[in-house]
């Protein structure tokens, strides 16, 4: 089954949707709502919305001496956020996550582009091969890089055979970026592939027939049309990179921290829940801005 037949098949029921029974008063009966929406919604209220509301409310309270919270309103958590120490970590995380996103895009776009043009059978195999590593344990994949890059590791021993090195690959920001790209590259390739796949090849042909060079066709036809895929892919890589704390810890050797480490440490080391909550709120704020940008770009496209 190809994508065109999928959308063709869905077109039929969708046209009937306007008078579909689900949208009638009877279909939205109180019983139906209670039975279908009730359990899930109740679950999400108790275990998602209430916890988030708690985190939100903690941002205005003071930390307890041994963890926990003293219910005494204060704005100090927000002023601390502006402390250059924490601001630098946040800006540094933005930087690392952005670099990882750009690299993933530069590697992922050509890959997705080529996959989209493979014969059908190979296309499926190529796509599955992109997803497969993503379905293996995250920590194991990070561990693989430690084995590969550490002082006596494989890369160094290979280089050593060539008379080079040894180099210190591990424990710098470059390794953190490598780990981020490695972990989230599949999340870049998939939406890009979906966007490129949808392109009508005739558009490109038309552009070429009108005398445009491939580069020009790419810039003025292909790229703008696949922009929503680009934005989605970037978001998929950026979001988990920005809040990550494991990769900086395991591949950064404790020499660099990101905002995720800062949040984790507020909860698990400093036991300053209110400030940890405030940092989490800052993290969410950055992500909400990005999501709005994405929605905006999707609407424009």
């Amino acid at each position, binding site marked *: 089954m190809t994508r065109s037949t999928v959308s063709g098949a869905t077109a039929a029921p969708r046209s009937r949707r306007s008078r579909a*029974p*689900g949208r009638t008063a009877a279909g939205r009966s109180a*019983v139906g709502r209670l039975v279908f*929406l009730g*359990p899930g919604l109740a679950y999400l209220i108790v275990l998602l919305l209430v*916890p988030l509301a708690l985190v939100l409310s903690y941002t205005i309270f003071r930390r307890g001496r041994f963890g926990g919270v003293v219910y005494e309103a204060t704005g100090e958590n927000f002023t601390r956020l502006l402390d250059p120490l924490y601001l630098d970590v946040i800006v540094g995380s933005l930087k690392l996550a952005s670099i990882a996103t750009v690299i993933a895009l530069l590697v992922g776009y050509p890959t997705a582009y080529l996959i989209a*043009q493979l014969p059908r059978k190979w296309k499926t195999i190529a796509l599955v091969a992109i997803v497969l590593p993503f379905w293996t344990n995250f920590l194991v994949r990070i561990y693989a890089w430690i084995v590969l890059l550490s002082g*006596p590791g494989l890369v160094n021993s290979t280089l050593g055979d060539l008379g080079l090195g040894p180099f210190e690959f591990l424990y710098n920001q470059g390794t953190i970026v490598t780990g981020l790209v490695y972990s989230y590259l599949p999340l870049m390739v998939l939406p890009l592939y979906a966007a490129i796949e949808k392109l009508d090849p005739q558009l490109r042909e038309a552009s070429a027939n009108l005398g445009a060079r491939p580069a020009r066709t790419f810039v003025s036809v292909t790229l703008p049309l696949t922009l929503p895929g680009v934005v989605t892919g970037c978001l998929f890589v950026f979001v988990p990179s920005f809040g990550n704390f*494991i990769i900086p810890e395991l591949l950064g050797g404790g020499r660099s921290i990101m905002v995720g480490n800062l949040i984790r440490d507020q909860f698990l080391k400093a036991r300053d829940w209110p400030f940890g909550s405030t940092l*989490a709120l800052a993290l969410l704020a950055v992500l909400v801005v990005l999501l709005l940008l994405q929605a905006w770009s999707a609407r424009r496209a």
Partner: protein
Amino acid sequence: MRRPRLLYVPFWATYVFLYAPIAVLVVMSFNSGDSPYSFEGLSLKWYGELAGNAEIGKGLVNTLVVAAGSTVLSTVLGTLLAVGMARHSRSKVLDAIGVLPAVLPDLVLAIGLLVFYASIRMTLGLHSVLLAHTVFGMAFVAAVVRTRLAHADTSLEEASRDLGAGPVTTFFRITLPQLAPGIAAGALLAFTLSVDEFVIAFFTAAPTEPTLPIVIYSMVRFGVTPEINALATLLLAVSFTVVIVAQRMTRLTESLS
């Protein structure tokens, strides 16, 4: 169709980049030597060591219990929620709540749940992780089932109602069988995500009941040991098999793209 040759460089680079570290792990897992870095000869000794590692065994059992439990819960709640959202509500807010766990950074959900559990003085254990995993598991099941619902033929449901069946009867007789493949895919997704999940488990597990990713995390932090290579290889084999089977079953790529 013309494929620019130059593009093959990043294309192949991507696959080498994705698979080289994994390949190294697999090869090194059969190493007879103690060093995790230099290959000395073929042996299964690290698999033997692994089998005798009680911590890992316990972590594995805990992980499977959590994943199985949260998958059942997620599948039931997520399917109901999907049907409810598609057929019984038009609320945008509800839609947003439904996808929130899937887009929320795991760290934020993790601290939220930790704070929540602490505020109700809950005793931590496997159940606290199970409940936590259901939050996002349910969202993923609901998303997959909704995609399926959007493609489902509604005329049968219509007929069922016209013949006087209530929403619940219609659901069990008509909607559910149609949704079965979607539900299975959603359940598989919830299970896999739970097995692999580390951050939320790290924050919500009792120290007495670590899940496998937590055990792996502490092993990795305590240094490189070839035992992890063997474990990694086994995990890879299982994941690969599951994904390939799932691929055959549900045409995963189509639904992803």
